[in-house]
Structures are given as structure tokens and as C-alpha cells.
């Protein structure tokens, strides 16, 4: 007969009490698991989202000093030749690759937790040609864009009505322009003496796009006699921690006549948000563990009082205080394993049930070590919560415990 056998048998006998205590642990572990899973998914989703917004470069003609609408080279006579784009791309790709391989070199995003490999997709180069003209008696900027690349870089674009432009004979207009002029899908507008059908109205973006008219790049180039020229190039990096700063430096050093600017502030904001979210998650995890300890402590304290008779008998039969503590510890470990496994299953269910509702589009990912972590956390919680009641109860003198019969 071994002490752990006694502990396991007693756990098996007190099914209600066991389930009650294990469910307390399980709920706490479930909260922990769900917090970690949803939190990680949220973190990842957040990173991906702000990475998509933040990891980009804008390449302008060298004389254009900022990216405000007034300085887009409209009417300034400064353009970037389209034929320069492949060589800029080559320089960009080389700089990203070198910077990525170096990992820890000039990487703008601080706080990268791990190195390792990441699949680097090709960056998207979205050139734009801006020209100002009169349409419906209003001064308006007509933007010629590469529609495929544009949709990829401005993935938040949605149409209010009609469809995204896909026909050279059609234009898409910004929401504010449509509101001011009263133009609707299906109407025709004259641009520089050529008639175009309004194919779609862009949903409001809170950006200069709301005031513009969009058509395909070749159409606008031809319309304004600017064949082979663009006003700027938006470059969207396709990796989370792309060292766009390296690419920015390389382009500025190696390409004459253009100036590349990256969005450092966004990268810094990303790091700050990431850090804050991590702190919130860690605080929640800590609180859930503390709650678990207190809940299980209360449950075990309650059951210990009901077990004084049993403790008295064990002492009379020769059990030392250490042996009693060991017996309680075995029970505690068994409860921890049971509670941990149930809690993990419950936590995963909660994460999959609540996660998508809390974080639209977030993907909950499971890892092999998570059940292990759940069980270890449950055992630690159970042991911690058992320690004090067990120490207290095992200290009762034999005479006192024996009289409790």
C-alpha cells in the first residue's frame, strides 16, 4: 500500500468533491488558456494589420519634399519615369533581403522577439500619376493608378456603389467628390475632353482619395500626355518586420532624382501598441491565476475541515505530518491534472467561440505546448492552494483530531 494509492482512491471516492474542486481549477485554467489564445491571436492580428499599414515606403521625385497633396508634383513638372521602377525594385529587394538576413541591423521596428525565418513575399509597387483638371466645373485631381497593385496596397478600399474600376473607359470617384457634384454610378463625366462612365463610388476613406477621380494609369497618362511618367510610387512591404528603413536608405543613396520616405512613426506606434497589449494580457493572466488560487484555496480549506476525522485516524495509524502533506500533495496533483485537462479543453472552446466574435478575422492557433502549460499551471495552482490548508490541518494534534471522532 502506497500513499499515492490512498490519495487516488480517496479522490475517486469523493467524486462530487473532486469534480467541484477540479471544476474550480478547470474554470481558472480555461480563463488562462482562453486569455492566452485570444490574446495571442489578437496580438498577431494587430501586428499583421499595423504591419500592413505601416510597412510602406513612398517614393517621390527628388524635388518633392513631403507627401502632402500639394507637393505630389501636380503641375510642378517633376515626375518619375516608369522605366525606373524595375531598377528601384531591384535595389529595394536587395536592401530588404540584406537587412532581413542581418536581423538586428537597421530594423526600424524595435522589440522583435525572435529571429528566425520568415517568408518574404515580393513587395507591391503601386505607381500613381496625379493631374489636376476641371470636371463638372470643379478643380479635381485625377489619379491614374495600376488597379491591381492599388487594390493590394489600399486593401481597405471598398465601393459605396457600383464596382472597383476595371475598365479603361470607366472612372471611379471619391465619396466626397460624388457628394459635392451629385454624380452617380452610370453618369458620364468629361475629363480633358474625353467622356467616361462613372463605374463606382469609393466608400469614404478619410484621405485625399475621397476628393479624387481614379482611372487606369495608361488612360490618365494618355489623357494628359504623360506617357511613361508617374507622380509617385507607393511600396508596400509584405513581411511583418521588413527592414524598410534599409530599403529607404538604399534607394536614397543609389537612385538619383527620387526620394524615399518610410513611415517611422507608425513603426514606433506599432511597437508601443504591441508592448501595451502584451502588458494587458500578462496582467489578465496573472489575475486569472490569482483568482484560481483563491477559489481553489477556499474549496480545499472547506474540505479540509470536513476531513479532520480522517486526518485523526491517519495520525493514529502512524502517519507523520510530512506523510499527510504528501498525501494531500498527491491529491492536489491529481486534481491539477484533471482540472488542467478539462480547463484546457474548455479554454480552447471559449477561445474558438469568443475569439472570432471579439476579434473579427483573428485566427486562433493551437500549439503542442499549450496543454502542457495548462496542466503545469493547474498543478501549480492546486499545490499552492493546497499548501496552506494542508499545513494548517496537518498541524492539528493527534488528541484534537482523534477527539473529532
Amino acid at each position, binding site marked *: *500500500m*502506497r*500513499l499515492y*494509492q*490512498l490519495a487516488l*482512491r*480517496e479522490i*475517486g*471516492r469523493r467524486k462530487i468533491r473532486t469534480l467541484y474542486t477540479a471544476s474550480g481549477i478547470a474554470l481558472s485554467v480555461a480563463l488562462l488558456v482562453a486569455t492566452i489564445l485570444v490574446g495571442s491571436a489578437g496580438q498577431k492580428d494587430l501586428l499583421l494589420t499595423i504591419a500592413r499599414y505601416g510597412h510602406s515606403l513612398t517614393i517621390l521625385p527628388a524635388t518633392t519634399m513631403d507627401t502632402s497633396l500639394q507637393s505630389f508634383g501636380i503641375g510642378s513638372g517633376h515626375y518619375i519615369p516608369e522605366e525606373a521602377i524595375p531598377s528601384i525594385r531591384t535595389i529595394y529587394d536587395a536592401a530588404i533581403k540584406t537587412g532581413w538576413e542581418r536581423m538586428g541591423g537597421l530594423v526600424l521596428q524595435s522589440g522583435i522577439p525572435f529571429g528566425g525565418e520568415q517568408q518574404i513575399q515580393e513587395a507591391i509597387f503601386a505607381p500613381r500619376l496625379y493631374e489636376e483638371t476641371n470636371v463638372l466645373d470643379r478643380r479635381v485631381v485625377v489619379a491614374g493608378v495600376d488597379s491591381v497593385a492599388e487594390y493590394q496596397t489600399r486593401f481597405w478600399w471598398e465601393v459605396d456603389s457600383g464596382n472597383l474600376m476595371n475598365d479603361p473607359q470607366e472612372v471611379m470617384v471619391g465619396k466626397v467628390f460624388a457628394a459635392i457634384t451629385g454624380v452617380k454610378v452610370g453618369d458620364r463625366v468629361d475629363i480633358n475632353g474625353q467622356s467616361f462612365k462613372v463605374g463606382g463610388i469609393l466608400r469614404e476613406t478619410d484621405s485625399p482619395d475621397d476628393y479624387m477621380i481614379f482611372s487606369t494609369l495608361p488612360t490618365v497618362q494618355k489623357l494628359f500626355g504623360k506617357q511613361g511618367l508617374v507622380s509617385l510610387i507607393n511600396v508596400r512591404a509584405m513581411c511583418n518586420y521588413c527592414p524598410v528603413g534599409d530599403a529607404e536608405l538604399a534607394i536614397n543613396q543609389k537612385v538619383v532624382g527620387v526620394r524615399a520616405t518610410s513611415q517611422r512613426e507608425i513603426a514606433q506606434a506599432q511597437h508601443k501598441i504591441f508592448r501595451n497589449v502584451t502588458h494587458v494580457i500578462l496582467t489578465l493572466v496573472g489575475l486569472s491565476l490569482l483568482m484560481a488560487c483563491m477559489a481553489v484555496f477556499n474549496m480545499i480549506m472547506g474540505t479540509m475541515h470536513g476531513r479532520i*476525522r*480522517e486526518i485523526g*485516524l*491517519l*495520525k*493514529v*495509524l*502512524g*502517519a*507523520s505530518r510530512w*506523510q499527510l502533506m504528501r498525501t494531500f500533495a498527491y491529491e492536489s496533483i491529481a486534481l491539477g491534472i484533471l482540472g488542467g485537462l478539462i480547463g484546457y479543453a474548455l479554454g480552447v472552446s471559449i477561445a474558438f467561440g469568443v475569439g472570432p466574435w471579439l476579434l473579427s478575422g483573428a485566427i486562433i492557433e493551437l500549439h503542442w505546448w499549450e496543454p502542457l502549460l495548462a496542466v503545469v499551471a493547474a498543478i501549480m495552482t492546486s499545490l499552492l492552494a493546497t499548501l496552506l490548508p494542508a499545513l494548517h490541518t496537518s498541524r492539528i494534534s*493527534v*488528541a484534537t483530531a*482523534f477527539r473529532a*471522532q
Partner: protein
Amino acid sequence: MNTNASVKVAVNSQPLVVLSHISKVYPLSDHSVYALDDMNLTILPGEYLSFMGPSGSGKSTLLNIIGGIDKPTSGEVYLDGERIDTLKEQRLLVIRRRKVAYVLQEARLFPSLTALENVMLPTAFVGDRKQVRQRALELLSKVGLEKRANHLVHQLSGGEAQRVCIARALINQPLLILADEPTGNLDHETRLEIVQQFEALNAEGHTIVMVTHDPELSARTRRRLLLRDGKISQS
């Protein structure tokens, strides 16, 4: 000092238990209650002794003091030649494991264990694993329960459960068996079974000290003591 746990001891050898001027006082707010009052007693190896007395006469307190579970307020207690009323818990633990065994009024068994496992349980605290199963089976056989060895407690009758307690009391080969109302909750027939069991054990040389309300049971012991107001009033 007798350190051998063998039960084959002769009557009239060195005393197994000596109580010298034992008092046990429970102080209350306005007065003190004397559970035991200046009591002297000697128990020899192989004795079969019973204490009778009304409730509150100090019977159970006396049993607990003899077994080292409780300490007297004054006086000296010797067990197997060793003074035990001044011992630390660590040494008392050894005494409880090796020298003294209890049989209680209720059959106090662990319901999750079988009869055999209940008998084996005290060996878990001693760390003795040598032929424990065999010994436990022999003891169950001795109390007539060899066929009930693998039965859970709830499958046993009251008398059978009490016999399991007796077998459990013997597993570590104690010098002294202390029985506190061992037949208290049993019917007449079952009581007789238990009495016969104790008589058989005593015949083998076991020293048995019993507390009982039952005059019939007391009458069958070899030495009968009557307790009243914390004193031995009749022997």
C-alpha cells in the same frame, strides 16, 4: 526494555504500562474538571484488561494517555519501560506506529480501500513493504475474513468491518492493543464474535486494554477496573 514486538510474552514479567499519579485536568472558565485524578496503574504484558464506568468517568482519556495520544496534566506514563508523557511528537510517532494499536467504537476504515488494503494501510507509514500482502491476508484469515479480502468496506457487515479493524491493529505487531468501546454499535451476536476474537488474541499473548459500557464484555476480561470521577473505584 522490551524492544521486541513479539506477542509471545509471559504474564508477570516487566510491566508494559505504568501510570504513576496521573491527573488530567480540563480547565473551564469558573472551575476545573478532573478527568483523571491521581491515578496509579500497572499493566503487565499479556493482560486482558477492561475499564468500565459511566460516561465522563475518564475511560477514553485514560486510554489516550496510555497510547501516547494525549498527555496527562501531571504524573508519569511509562510504556514498555520508556517514559512517554514527556516525549516529542517524533518519538511518539514511532510508538504509535510500532507499539500501540487502536480498535475504535466505530469501524473506522477507509471506504475507498478494500478490506485487505485497509489492513495494509498502517505499513505505508512505517515504510515496511516486506511480505505486507501476505501478512495482511494471514491476519484477515485469523479474523475469519480471508474470503472478504477484496471487498470494499460498504460490502462488509458491521461485525466484519470491526474485525478488519482488529486485523489492521495487528499488522505492525504492536505490544499493546487499545480498544475503545469496540462493540458499541454491534448487535448481540456480532458482539460475541468480536469478544471471542479478542479472547483469541489474548490467548496468543496480546496485551489488550479495553474500555466498555458492556458488563457482559467486561465480565469476560481477566481484569476488570471500574472508573468513577477520574479514579479507579473498584478492581
